């Protein structure tokens, strides 16, 4: 959809209730709660080891 330099991508993992978050730094993690997910993404670079 978009090709900017700082893009966050969140996919709903097919067949599950989980959200897969990918930071622009390529760090990724799965979540069950979108609030926690945004805290983690926006906390970049804290804990973003890819």
């Amino acid at each position, binding site marked *: 959809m*978009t090709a*900017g*330099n700082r893009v966050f991508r969140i996919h709903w993992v*097919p067949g599950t209730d989980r959200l897969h978050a990918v930071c*622009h730094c390529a760090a990724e993690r799965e979540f069950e*709660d*979108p609030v926690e997910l*945004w805290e983690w993404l926006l906390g970049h670079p804290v804990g973003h080891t890819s």
Partner: protein
Amino acid sequence: MSWFPRDQWYVAAYGSEITHDLFSRTVCGEPVLFWRTRDGVVTAMPDRCVHRRFPLSQPPSRLVDDQVVCGYHGFTYDAGGKCVAVPGQARVPRTARLLPYPVVEQDSFVWVFIGDPAKADAARIPRAPWLVDPGYTTVSGMEPLNARYGLLVDNLLDLSHETYLHGGYIGTPEVASTPITTEVDEDAGIVFVSRHMDDAECPPFYAKSTGLQGRIARWQDIEYTPPCLYKLHSRIAPVGSVPRADGTDPDAFHVEVVYAITPETETSTHDFWAVARDFALGDEEVSAFLADSNRTVVLQDVVALNVLEQVIANEPEGYQELSINIDTGGLAARRMLGRLCGRS
């Protein structure tokens, strides 16, 4: 911190609303006076006389050629907001001037810049070209909403509500049950939410307008540019059909649903909506059907959000909410709006 994002462009009206006549609309708490000069240019200035603050849109205030004459004591302003005459004396005080708003007419909308005029960059106004493209036919309207604009943003970013609030119009079971993909472009300031239903029931809104029977592929691609412009790229096609590699998409029907979300006051909003289609061009019957259906849908949201506003207004600060997967895009939009309002 402000209750709305300052230094931003907002849709104040459709161009068709502004004629050679005084027109007032409150945008982000500021009453703005518009009129179209005899040369066809839209002007925008505060709708308050500098003398005793009488509204310049209020009769007997009137437009005489390209000057507005205050209906209280006759202060007269030109199209640039400069006071050119006051009653009883020859000297017009130097400070007698209404500061004009930067204004741009584009894509059928009249945009005004609320904030420091020096920061107004017309190139930053997001586009909705379909609304004036001869390859599309558009129907549009505006409904007053007695709710804070954030509630409409929440509403439009999560279309799973179509299944419940708009059943029988645009809602079908698949909308709420199909997973979404969310993307946030921090540099461009855009939230994207997409939901691709590859085998879905066709709701009346699309069945009657496209003539498609049976199951359909229904793609919803949202593109929200905070604070004001929201676009839903809607693609309706026979099941199994996908756009071609060269980008053309001849088997599909495309509907561009555009909303402009303009705060009026802290708890009321101008809810502009437009539906542009690339099929049944010029077909009056289809236009009437889509205009009527979309207005009905918008009013279903208006009724629900007006109630929600009352609920929220009467709750203590910091009430509890619970967010789930469907809210991923809405949360991103809220965060961007918060940042634009000056929250960290």
